[in-house]
């Protein structure tokens, strides 16, 4: 198993600003992912964070809006840029090793005002 620390757990931000969410895993993992989840709904994959290379984004998500870093095998960040109220959501980090279950951080509840 793996333990994932995600922070901040929640934040209230002004529109037009940016927020960086951090995800730290307690052991090396192959894959790290970032999801968005509206309350009461399922998880939508934003991107796969690739170590040492650019993230792979899903349709509808772009690097300028959601830049992602993954400098090593245990750490990744997601930045939500130029925020608007529509970005208010829960953001989840997950990690796994190939062909195993995914482990999740506790999520970041973002509110943009």
């Amino acid at each position, binding site marked *: 198993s793996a333990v994932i620390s995600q922070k901040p757990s929640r934040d209230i931000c002004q529109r037009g600003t940016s927020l960086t969410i951090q995800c730290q895993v307690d052991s090396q993992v192959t894959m790290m992912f970032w999801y968005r989840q509206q309350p009461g709904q*399922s998880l939508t994959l934003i991107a796969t964070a690739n170590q040492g290379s650019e993230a792979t984004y899903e349709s509808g998500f772009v690097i300028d809006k959601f830049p992602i870093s993954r400098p090593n095998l245990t750490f990744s960040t997601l930045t939500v840029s130029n925020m608007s109220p529509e970005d208010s959501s829960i953001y989840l980090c997950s990690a796994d090793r190939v062909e195993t*279950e995914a482990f999740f951080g506790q999520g970041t509840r973002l509110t943009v005002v």
Partner: protein
Amino acid sequence: AQTVTQSQPEMSVQEAETVTLSCTYDTSESDYYLFWYKQPPSRQMILVIRQEAYKQQNATENRFSVNFQKAAKSFSLKISDSQLGDAAMYFCAYRSALDDMRFGAGTRLTVKP
């Protein structure tokens, strides 16, 4: 992309009784993994049970068991002796070596005392 369908947005069960949550999926792969995750109000995604497609035997974890029907592409979760702490959103998920984790829409389970 592979799809995961949970046709029950909400389910309710009396404490100590048994409930079954449904999940179907679509795939052309023969080797894959299926999961059930629980998400309580704390937002933490918790793995409940996993099933490898190559295994014929249904997975069991204490009060949680699955009915895996590979030909029918069905993967239901049975919760026996339901407890108040079982109340949560439950997500069915699929992944393979070629695909990232895909989640169903979720089923909100209410446990009545």
